[in-house]
């Protein structure tokens, strides 16, 4: 290998490590330091064609390996990179938050909100984001930087739900090398548990960051996450209205966070509002039937993270390459490696080089691309597709990168996630916003609610299901605007008539 190639391999390797958010930080060489270490939002990768602006990606695209150059067909996206983008590009830090009873260690990405500039001024808002089933906290990575561009004082807390990302329950953590797979199947993914997890993460973050009080919060949930934030917003409304006595907090539909009741009481959640991304009870329930067929069409594994990113972009699952590069690595885990949190650089390096070897076998790379093409077509004529999906799945079994979360195994929870969602969405306290990828997704209850003016609806017809990844900029604009409207510190309404009368004014 030439020196150049080695450098490229190293860069690729450390990308992968970053993407998996592995602490402790693997050893960097100077070359890497230059590229990743510093700026947060400042040098976020730009969309697609301008990728030469991103030094990370340019290393990848400019110098393809000889194997690929010979046998693989030209990149589907000329001039674009499909290399993973590390989370450090988007978030200030990651947090591992062990619950007090030790049953679970939450993992979350955080960019802190700006503290209040002075007395009387409220701190920047904290957008707390919850991803959908099978996704991870990195789903909101690009969105977070877009929000920060428009509202620099905002913070973003994006957690990995249990069974997803790098959040580990003790049972799976104890299993260590064997991997979380079998254990994850037994995760308790009921809505109530997920909502209480979300509350715990907020409270644990406050403790870990030594915040004297919580900043005003806007909950953002995508898909399953939308159901979770709605559940939490609803239960906050009921608990706070029924009583604020600690003992009676127990009656809320959300179980207390494992960290103990005392903390919950202290947790005076200033909830400005909640936003739900592309999930509606009616259409979600309809879609559940075809979920297994859809899942069967997904490849079971990928040769590399790069392949995975490419599949997501080609199949239009995620329609924005930058978003896919940031979020997809969080969805996958290398099957030969352990589930343990730290992978030694040597391990990773050998794997990266192994990939290189794989690239030299023409069948490997080429087949993957054909497969991606097929996936794309199948998705068009869905749900007839799926027959091929099985063979795809088998073919993929030899591939090292596997899904972290086995979605099919979460089926017992599906109906519980979405049942009653519309009603809860309308009844929660605080501002409500629904972002959809199409108006046809509204069910009757929300259609009536919308026409009675009970919530704000934003529709982005050009987006797919992952609205915030497909259109991070537009979603950020909508969210920042949603915050602006619901920001009580800035809100000045005209005086009430009764007040004017009390002041003896003529009205």
């Amino acid at each position, binding site marked *: 290998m030439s020196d150049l190639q080695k450098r490229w391999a190293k860069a690729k390797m450390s990308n992968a490590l970053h993407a998996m958010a592995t602490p402790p930080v693997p050893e960097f060489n100077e070359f890497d330091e230059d590229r990743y270490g510093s700026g947060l939002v400042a040098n976020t990768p730009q969309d697609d064609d301008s990728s030469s602006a991103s030094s990370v990606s340019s290393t990848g695209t400019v110098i393809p390996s000889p194997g690929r150059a010979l046998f693989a067909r030209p990149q589907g996206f000329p001039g674009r990179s499909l290399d993973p983008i590390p989370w450090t590009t988007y978030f200030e830090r990651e947090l591992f938050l062990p619950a007090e009873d030790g049953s679970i260690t939450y993992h979350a990405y955080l960019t802190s909100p700006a503290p209040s500039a002075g007395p009387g001024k409220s701190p920047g808002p904290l957008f707390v984001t919850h991803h959908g089933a099978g996704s991870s906290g990195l789903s909101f990575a690009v969105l977070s930087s877009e929000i920060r561009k428009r509202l620099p004082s905002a913070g973003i807390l994006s957690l990995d739900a249990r069974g997803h990302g790098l959040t580990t329950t003790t049972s799976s953590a104890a299993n260590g090398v064997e991997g979380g797979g079998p254990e994850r199947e037994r995760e308790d993914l009921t809505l109530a548990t997920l909502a209480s997890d979300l509350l715990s993460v907020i409270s644990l973050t406050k403790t870990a960051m030594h915040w004297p009080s919580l900043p005003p919060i806007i909950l953002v949930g995508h898909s*399953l996450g939308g159901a979770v934030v709605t559940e939490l917003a609803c239960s906050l409304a009921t608990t706070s209205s029924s009583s604020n006595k600690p003992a009676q907090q127990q009656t809320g539909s959300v179980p207390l966070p494992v960290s103990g009741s005392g903390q919950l009481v202290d947790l005076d959640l200033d909830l400005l509002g909640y936003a739900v991304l592309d999930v509606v009870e009616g*259409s979600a329930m309809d879609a559940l039937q075809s979920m297994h067929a859809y899942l069967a069409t997904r490849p079971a594994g990928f040769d590399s993270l790069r392949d995975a990113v490419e599949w997501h972009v080609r199949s239009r699952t995620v329609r924005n390459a930058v978003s896919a590069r940031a979020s997809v690595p969080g969805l996958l885990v290398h099957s030969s490696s352990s589930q343990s949190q730290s992978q030694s650089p040597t391990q990773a390096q050998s794997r990266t080089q192994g990939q290189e070897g794989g690239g030299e076998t023409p069948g490997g790379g080429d087949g993957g691309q054909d497969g991606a093409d097929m996936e794309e077509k199948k998705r068009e004529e869905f749900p007839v597709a799926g027959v091929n999906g099985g063979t795809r799945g088998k073919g993929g079994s030899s591939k090292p990168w596997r899904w972290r979360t086995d979605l099919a195994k979460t089926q017992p929870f599906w109906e519980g996630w979405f049942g009653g969602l519309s009603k809860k969405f309308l009844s929660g306290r605080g501002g409500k916003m629904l972002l959809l990828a199409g108006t*046809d997704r509204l069910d009757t209850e929300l*259609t009536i609610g919308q026409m009675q003016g009970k919530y704000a609806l934003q529709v982005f017809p050009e987006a797919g299901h992952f609205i915030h990844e497909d259109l991070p900029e537009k979603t950020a604009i909508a969210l920042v605007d949603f915050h602006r409207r619901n920001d009580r510190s800035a809100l000045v309404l005209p005086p009430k*008539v009764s007040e004017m009368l009390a002041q003896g004014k003529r*009205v």
Partner: protein
Amino acid sequence: MSDLDRWIAQLRACRPIAESEVRELCHKARELLIEEGNVVTINAPVTICGDIHGQFHDLMELFRVGGDVPDTNYLFMGDFVDRGFYSLESFLLLLCLKVRYPDRMTLIRGNHESRQITTVYGFYDECLRKYGSANVWRYCCDVFDYLALGAIVLGASNTVSGQSDDVEIEVHNSDGQVISRFLRQKEGDNNKQGGKTGGTPNGTTTTNGAPPPAQTSSPPTLTGPPGSGASGSSSGSLGNPAGAVLCVHGGLSPLIDKVDKIRLLDRKQEVPHEGAMCDLLWSDPDEIDGWGLSPRGAGFLFGADIVKVFNHRNDLSLIARAHQLVMEGFKEMFDASIVTVWSAPNYCYRCGNVAALLELSEDESGLGVLARSNGDVNRSDGGVGAAGAAAGAGPRSGVLMEGDLLARRTGPARKYRVFQAAPQDSRGMPAKKPVADYFL
């Protein structure tokens, strides 16, 4: 004008007219609308309609129930397009009728008459589907910019035609049968509604198996007209000459304290995201005190105090507005000082609501002075003196006291016609889009 009549006939058959004809129609409409003020003044009798939302067959049903044009004067309060499958035919037909019978047809702008909203909620796609290009959509949007923002109805009678003086509200079904009647509350009768004429509370005649209304023994218990199931405070108001009725799509704006301020707006533009023009098209009344944040993301919520002060200051007896789906078709709020009229039955072909029209009849008594609400007569005292004197309601000081706020204003007699969705013609409906395949 034979072209126009031909277009009307064609559109009534729910067949779109050619692109060049749309262009000509829109051009004519614009010439007409540009002459109108932001607030159009019209005289009773008039039939006031709320949202249509492209439900063409229900619009035909509306004309059947309310009477055909030009025999009946109509005022449509916006939201002609989007959501339904025939936005194009519905809007073009209304526009044709406007051009053909300019003084019998009034169209004002709704929040859906906007480029931004129509691109998302269906009208744009429909134009693209039916013409293969966005030109027609562009012509229509240009017309939207010229639509008036509100209307003032003058000369409404305070008796329902053909009835005795006592009837204030009459609710009809779609076949013209009376479902219920509400008697006007006599002066000094404010809190004794139960003791009024007739054996039934509120003096209501109930037919069609509609349940008798709940007894309203105390003012806070708000009941609407029985049979409609509407809730509201439409329990009648004091009888004296009717003031004017302001019609607007959404509601009030904190930036607008006088109707005249609406007249000062520059309306010939896309609906802005905020400001007075936006509020007029987006706001909603709500059971709050003062102004509130609208959950819609545009406009405001406003409470009873705001409406009463506004009506008093502008010598209005009623605000008629649309914008909000009401399952019962109409809903009177705040001591009948504001009413929501909704004219899209079974909204989106699935909401299961009924629709309503509001008929205001012409004052034929020749009695009383029309209380002009344009702000052009005797406005120095806020109109209070003139209206009060005309009504013989005793002297009022210029300073409005708390008690005055509670005083009931005059209301014109209101006849509501409630109707159901037309039997749905399923031809031409786009197939339901397949469900999203990934939804977890």
